[in-house]
């Protein structure tokens, strides 16, 4: 298929996935903010959310002080913020429109309808009326988009590039989420001192789990109280947890194999190595050497994979 077409498909899915993950994080923060908590703790939450996407400086330049209402505005509606939900949905739709002929009618219509609807909803104040419902809607549009794609598209390159985009983006987003949320806990998270802190921790960790739809999964897998190292294990290493780094990398490796060409061997090798590193890692080892360092390195490697995929398939040098 045309490189340009593959590029648009890849980015269409990346932006769709990014919109979903942004909605997930905002939703969790919003729900947590409804619990009784100190202003300082709430502040940490909203600030963390901005640093996840490396947006704190550009936010501060525009809005100054971090307040919940302004952060929501910035992350949902601000079209000058390339990571806002609006910007992501617009970019997804623009990419889809550029290659609408390569999508099934259903797949295109979902993208187009999402864009038309989100404009209508924001115009009518639906977001302000019920932020929780709005975030839920964004998530479900993403589910719908993915489902329609898998359910209607021919299983050829077009689909593989879309899947590559989805899972590369998901690996990136989950890693950022884990990094920031673990950072947010100032105290040593292997055992909180006071009872009050313990209670806070429960809400903190369960919120993270909920943000990746993993609360029930955690209970089912561990049948235990919520412990930080297990949360980390679930989100990083479990191959059967659909939003974990390991599961995402499995998909990246598989789809990369399906589209491989003459120049993509090295990219495949690196993707395979990154996957193997997750497959054979233990959470205690990762925590011993430092979670933040591990995740930072992981993000660099995912980023590099994205650049290599671009070079190998999407924007090949002029022949």
């Amino acid at each position, binding site marked *: 298929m045309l*490189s340009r077409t593959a590029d648009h498909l890849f980015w269409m899915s990346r932006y769709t996935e990014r919109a979903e993950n942004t909605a997930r994080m905002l939703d969790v923060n919003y729900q947590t903010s409804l619990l009784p908590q100190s202003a300082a703790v709430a502040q940490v939450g909203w600030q963390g959310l901005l640093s996840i996407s490396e947006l704190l400086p550009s936010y501060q330049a525009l809005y100054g002080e971090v307040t919940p209402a302004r952060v929501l505005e910035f992350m949902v509606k601000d079209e000058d913020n390339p990571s806002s939900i609006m910007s992501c949905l617009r970019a997804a739709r623009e990419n889809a429109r550029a290659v609408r002929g390569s999508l099934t009618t259903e797949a295109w219509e979902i993208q187009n309808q999402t864009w038309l609807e989100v404009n209508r909803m924001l115009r009518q104040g639906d977001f302000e009326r019920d932020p929780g419902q709005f975030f839920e809607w964004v998530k479900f549009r993403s589910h719908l988009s993915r489902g329609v794609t898998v359910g209607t598209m021919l299983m050829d390159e077009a689909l593989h590039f879309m899947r590559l985009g989805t899972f590369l983006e998901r690996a990136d987003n989950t890693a950022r989420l884990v990094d920031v949320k673990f950072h947010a806990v100032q105290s040593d998270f292997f055992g909180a001192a006071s009872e009050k802190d313990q209670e806070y921790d429960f809400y903190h960790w369960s919120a993270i789990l909920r943000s990746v739809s993993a609360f029930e999964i955690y209970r089912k897998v561990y049948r235990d109280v919520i412990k930080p190292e297990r949360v980390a294990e679930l989100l990083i290493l479990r191959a059967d947890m659909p939003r974990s780094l390991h599961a995402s990398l499995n998909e990246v490796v598989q789809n990369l194999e399906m589209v491989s060409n003459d120049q993509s061997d090295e990219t495949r090798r690196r993707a395979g190595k990154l996957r193997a590193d997750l497959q054979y890692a233990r959470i205690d080892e990762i925590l011993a050497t430092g979670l933040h360092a591990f995740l930072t390195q992981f993000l660099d490697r995912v980023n590099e994979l994205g650049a290599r995929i671009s070079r190998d398939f999407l924007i090949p040098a002029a022949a």
Partner: protein
Amino acid sequence: MLKFDEMYTRLPIAGSPVRTHYEAYERWLARQPAEMMKARREEAEMIFRRVGITFAVYGAKDEDGAGTERLIPFDLIPRIIPAHEWQSMEKGLVQRVTALNRFIHDVYHDQDIIRAGVIPADQILNNAQFRSVMMGVDVPNNIYSQISGIDIVRAPNANGDGEYYVLEDNLRVPSGVSYMLEDRKMMMRLFPDLFSQHRVAPVAHYPDLLLETLRASAPPATAEPTVVVLTPGMYNSAYFEHAFLAQQMGVELVEGQDLLVKDDFVWMRTTRGLKRVDVIYRRVDDDFLDPQVFRPTSTLGCAGLMNAYRAGNVAICNAVGTGVADDKSIYPYVPKMIEFYLGEKPILNNVPTYMCRNKDELQYTLDNLKDLVVKEVHGAGGYGMLVGPASTKAEIEEFRAAVLANPSGYIAQPTLSLSSCPTFVESGIAPRHIDLRPFVLSGKTVQMVPGGLTRVALKEGSLVVNSSQGGGTKDTWILEV
């Protein structure tokens, strides 16, 4: 002005006798409550938006300042043509397009028609659309215009009977066929019962015929030709149609940046390296095709394309230089072309045309400006024209000065009382003027799907049907017997 309707035999008002082929539809329409029609229209609009059947307006903004995508208004009431009228129109179209293709071949080869004195040499050789780069270039099947859009109107002749007239030939990159297909789909979705009561000739196989035509136009040596559609990109006003046709034919939709020329062959950049391209259905104007030959700043085309084309290694559809045959200054000669090349009498009428380049015809035009339609020879899209009876004194005088300053840049035609068709507008059902654009495909044979795109001037009394000026579309039914 409203003297001649498609549905009614006399005045276009309810109560006057209905033409035979409209009878069943008229009975059906009379039974439909106005609210139902209104609801259907809203439904249609919603579906068109969701499906994204829109056209882009350069530089325009929506109310909220966001998008530049507009819907082309779709009218619920079909334009119906009886089978016998279509059959003779179809014969006329085949004849006309065959002659036009012979003419273009002649212009770029022996120029017999000039030597025979049928058309003055300077009108061809000095025409802005004449492409000297095409001289002596052979194209597959000697076909230049694979896709021709012929604009036809119906109007009363001297006896007051309805007759079809060709208003204009479009042989460069005629557009609108996607609306023909989508309008039909929409009608079948909104009013399935109508289709069980009428035998409407289907049009949905157009993309198949188009692909067949394009494949038949491939360079002779290619066994399994790779066909692509070349679009200027998603901000072009007809982008929806480009994407639609590529998808329906199952071929790649490419932009100039996806192509490159190597060793006089054309290649596209794919995820698995370069792939050869044999046929380009281009929706980009001549001027932008190859920066080495035409406009040097164009990024919409591909450098070296003309070399590959002249070497016979790629087919470009429509060919470069077809504009020399659809220019308004050449139009008056088409009936003579048909006689010259085919030895036949033209089946379809031309509208009588005065060429202001000729002294007597200029004088006649200037004496009768208030009754005539005057058109710029190179104008398009309904711009650069004067509709005498609908213009103010000042507008007429302004045009008089323009015509005097450059007589050969203008032609004039009598104001036809174009037929109208009942149309569902804000105030209810009212007559509006229409035209028809059938799409004629020329490959190994000349063929077309029955019907075409009916455009309707939604403004009361207006004769301008172009979408850029408030025109809409209607489904077109050729009734089988």
